[in-house]
């Protein structure tokens, strides 16, 4: 028996060549969308559920009081409840797809790149939908009942670009936070999550304590005013990227354990 015909790298029985670097990343994106239940249908259902609950509650308030009271006291939009779910989504996408992607002989690097790309696509998609809804909300004066579901004080009365950027930044930030939790769970399991959660609480409390102790709150406020809504949304992308990189560092030596 000769080696001729043995399938070796380079000897293929189909016309397709080996995958390019982008193709290898892109198929991870497709993997996340192979089953649209988790990636598309469930998030849209949750957004729809939030919308309906807020609309019904606000309609009841208006009906009961007969007054056109703005919901949410003009501060927090109902959509805020969508954000925690994005953390959960990212944890699942990282944790469950990682073992499967490696099972299909992907590298960890391609998995991280593909997952980040999926986050960007996901966030852009939601950003378009929410922006469109925010305009609809204005034109229908709060869906006919003065409900504030999509309007965000952050962009105030800002235009299209600012709205797109704001929604995008918040969603992608949440997903990147989730990806860190997912990656840490894959690498260090439950113990890792406790350590990470504890560390995050410590950093958060420490920062608040530091700012309070040094009476820096004025400066913080001044910074928010100085960078403005667009600046803040853009700045949010920085920690998002940082979290994404931390997530990848955790995955780099992770093994899909049974």
């Amino acid at each position, binding site marked *: *028996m000769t080696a001729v015909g043995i399938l070796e790298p380079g000897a293929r029985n189909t016309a397709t060549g080996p995958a390019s670097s982008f193709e290898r990343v892109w198929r991870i994106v497709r993997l996340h969308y192979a089953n649209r*239940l988790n990636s598309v249908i469930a998030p849209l259902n949750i957004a729809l559920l939030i919308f309906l609950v807020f609309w019904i509650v606000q309609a009841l308030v208006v009906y009961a009081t007969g007054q056109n009271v703005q919901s949410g006291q003009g501060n927090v939009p109902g959509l805020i409840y969508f954000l925690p779910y994005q953390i959960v989504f990212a944890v699942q996408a990282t944790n469950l797809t990682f073992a499967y992607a490696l099972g299909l002989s992907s590298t960890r690097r391609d998995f991280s790149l593909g997952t980040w790309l999926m986050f960007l696509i996901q966030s852009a998609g939601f950003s378009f939908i929410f922006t469109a809804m925010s305009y609809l909300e204005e034109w229908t004066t709060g869906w006919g009942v003065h409900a504030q579901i999509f309007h965000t004080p952050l962009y105030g009365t800002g235009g299209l670009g600012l709205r797109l950027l704001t929604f995008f930044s918040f969603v992608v930030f949440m997903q990147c936070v989730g990806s860190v939790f997912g990656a840490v769970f894959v690498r260090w399991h439950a113990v890792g999550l406790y350590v990470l959660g504890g560390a995050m609480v410590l950093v958060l409390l420490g920062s608040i304590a530091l700012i309070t102790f040094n009476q820096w709150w004025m400066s913080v406020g001044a910074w928010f005013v100085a960078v403005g809504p667009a600046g803040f949304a853009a700045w949010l992308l920085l920690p998002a990227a940082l979290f994404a990189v931390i997530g990848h560092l955790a995955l780099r030596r992770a093994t899909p354990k049974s």
Partner: protein
Amino acid sequence: MTTATPAIETRGLTKRFGAMTALDDVTVTIPAGSITGLLGRNGAGKTTLMHVLTGQDFPSEGEARVFGQRPAENASVLQHIAFIKESQKYPDDFKPKHVLTSAPWFFENWDADFAAQLVDDFRLPLNRRIKKLSRGQLSAVGVIVGLASRAPLTFFDEPYLGLDAVARQIFYDRLLTDYAKFPRTVVLSTHLIDEVANLLEHVVVIDQGRVILDSPAEELRGRAASVIGPRAEVDAFLARGRVETLHREELGGTASVLVDGIDDVVRADALNSGLQLTPVTLQQLIVRRTGGVLNDAAAPAAEAAALRGRRTAGARR
């Protein structure tokens, strides 16, 4: 074999998990274009070895090379590997149809018609959630991916837990037929040694993280046998020191000794001493080599029957 680069080559490969050494100085070469059996008891280190070879885990010491390159995080090597493992996890809410949609993106030789035929063969329900599949159906998902992917290097790690005898036979038949049409390198890890023995061209046996046997399968056939006869004759034969004793049983004045290292000279010696030689299966050899007890109920009975000895040992046709 004229293939220059072996499919798999490890040198001094060691993997530790804390204080536990899962792989201990493993040096093996698996030729390209063969079906190799990776055999051993549960926990022997087979899965760990395959994890390292497929880049899912990292060596503590030593080196692992696949098609001449290190596999870890090496896309150019990994995209030629299919690793089908018993413990493979799938994303939540995945159904077999999602697996069969997504797997082709990763394997350039994927044959969709073959996959569809295998789905029929194994009667796999495509639209049932993977979590709801029976153990056998779950195994079928992996077997179908492993066969239809036609990856140049395919690992099957206990691929058929829960598959019944009929389904396992289908797997062997499809593997052989497709392997004949599209030669590639297959590594088959299983504890059903007797079932796969005839499929194998090469055998690697691991015990407690060490390679204890690395040989062409044909060389193992006939290398071990049970030597049966009067105790004194058997002892005299063993005392000549040409063979290694793996297992000994006695019944009355008769001894039956499973020995390794039989060749033509030893065979003639035994027969001239009036001893019987009865062949042992690859499974029996490996079980004795790995210090285990035969768990196959039929095997001890066969040994006992051989011990009572009726057959003339000369004609082995």
